[in-house]
């Protein structure tokens, strides 16, 4: 049996930020991640981040990742890699962990922060499971982390930020993006990234979807098709495009298995990716010693995930008696100001409204 004041599951941007914030306040943290390396999906994000200077805007994602890892090391935070949390008992106090695929370990935690992230959604069409059809994030991992090009002629499905950013990064990696396909009547991504792919000459097909993918050993071509205002396919509008890769950038779903296991109360919040554990302004769930941060609390961006991590970190530190309620309040107010700044404007307001709804539902549940 291992004992820890605070266990954090998931060493991505939210988990690392939570660990750093808690450790700075004197909490003894154990950070657990199933991957061989910490950093979550930060190391494939080679674009500059948005927000104000306080959010490290203008700094590339992987550089932020390196900074977080350095801080984690300097603070002496214990990190278990290749370690999977397979079970949670005793209202989130007892964890069953498998280390290196060999050793079964029990960990008793006073407080638990779940920062497990999200996984990519798929859209289905005939041929969607051919080799060469993959998540846009998978292609991004291949090019920016593994430095391997998964294909040369890409069709991107989805024009949100992931779709346009990964399209641009595929161009940077030397691929040709044949089309960005968007079912909605307009492009969903930030202007700066959309403009970059437009300038590179990538054609956008708004109000279209993929009807079918062709190929035997791998995808060789797709048929696009126009959609009417009710997203029904319009026969006769097919466009045949040769390609060797189809990337799906069609949203993310929070990875909530551990929160279900812990017994957290959920509600469906479509704007933030699906079923989400309800929480309060301290990131505390309906199970009092279990907190959440990042995409598990609603899929957004790495910048908001880091702020939520800090929020959970300082409030856990306070709950454990490491800092005063005044300090936690002052720090939380600062962080909330940053979060509100990230959740405003044309793209952010919808997420702000959804978060407000979560907090309201959380309050209704007595959290």
């Amino acid at each position: 049996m291992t004992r820890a004041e605070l266990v954090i599951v998931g060493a991505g941007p939210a988990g690392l930020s939570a660990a750093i914030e808690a450790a700075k306040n004197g909490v003894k943290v154990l950070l657990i991640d199933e991957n061989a390396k910490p950093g979550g999906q930060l190391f494939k994000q080679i674009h500059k981040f948005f927000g104000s200077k306080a959010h490290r805007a203008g700094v590339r994602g992987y550089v932020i990742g390196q900074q977080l890892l350095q801080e984690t090391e300097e603070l002496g935070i214990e990190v278990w890699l290749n370690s999977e949390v397979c079970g949670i008992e005793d209202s989130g106090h007892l964890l069953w962990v498998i280390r290196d695929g060999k050793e079964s370990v029990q960990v008793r935690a006073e407080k638990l922060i779940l920062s497990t992230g999200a996984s990519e959604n798929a859209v289905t069409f005939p041929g969607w499971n051919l080799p060469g059809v993959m998540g846009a994030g998978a292609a991004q991992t291949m090019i920016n982390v593994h430095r391997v090009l998964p294909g040369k002629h890409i069709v991107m499905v989805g024009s949100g930020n992931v779709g346009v950013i990964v399209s641009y990064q595929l161009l940077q990696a030397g691929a040709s993006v044949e089309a960005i396909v968007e079912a909605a009547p307009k492009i969903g991504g930030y202007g700066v990234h959309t403009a970059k792919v437009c300038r590179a000459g990538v054609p956008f097909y708004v109000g279209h979807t993929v009807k079918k993918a062709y190929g035997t050993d791998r995808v060789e071509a797709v048929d696009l098709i126009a959609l009417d205002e009710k997203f029904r396919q319009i026969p006769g509008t097919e466009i045949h495009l040769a390609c060797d890769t189809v990337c799906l950038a069609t949203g993310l779903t929070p990875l909530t298995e551990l929160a279900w296991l812990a017994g957290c109360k959920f509600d469906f919040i479509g704007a933030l990716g699906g079923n989400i554990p309800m929480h309060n302004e301290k990131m505390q769930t309906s199970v009092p010693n279990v907190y959440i941060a990042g995409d598990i609390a609603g899929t957004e961006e790495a910048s908001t995930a880091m702020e939520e991590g800090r929020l959970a970190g300082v409030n856990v530190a306070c709950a454990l008696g490491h800092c005063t309620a005044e300090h936690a309040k002052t720090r939380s107010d600062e962080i909330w100001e940053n979060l509100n700044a990230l959740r405003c404007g044309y793209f952010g307001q919808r997420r702000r409204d959804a978060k407000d709804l979560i907090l309201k539902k959380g309050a209704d549940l007595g959290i």
Partner: protein
Amino acid sequence: MGRIEKHPILGDLPERREVTIYLDGKPYPAQEGDMIAAALIANGVSTLRFTKNEHKPRSIFCGIGRCTDCVMIVDGKPNVRTCVTPVRDGMQIRTQEGTGSWEGGGAK
């Protein structure tokens, strides 16, 4: 489909020790630190496994160890997630059929 040797943001591909991996007995070059799936895709391999009922080819889908579309038989062990398993010099990899089987008989 090949390595990205030069990159406008990430710079030149760092030098790494070359190793040899074997897919269904055939040698392929890989680099130390590569994930198996990345090394195979770099060599132009498109099929990592075939599905159980319809014998359809599959390759990576999520690329980060969640979806299990990329599982192969690695050093005799079936259902290894090749997108998150690093290569080893001399590694024996087999295209997996269906749910695969333990090579050499029995569970280990």
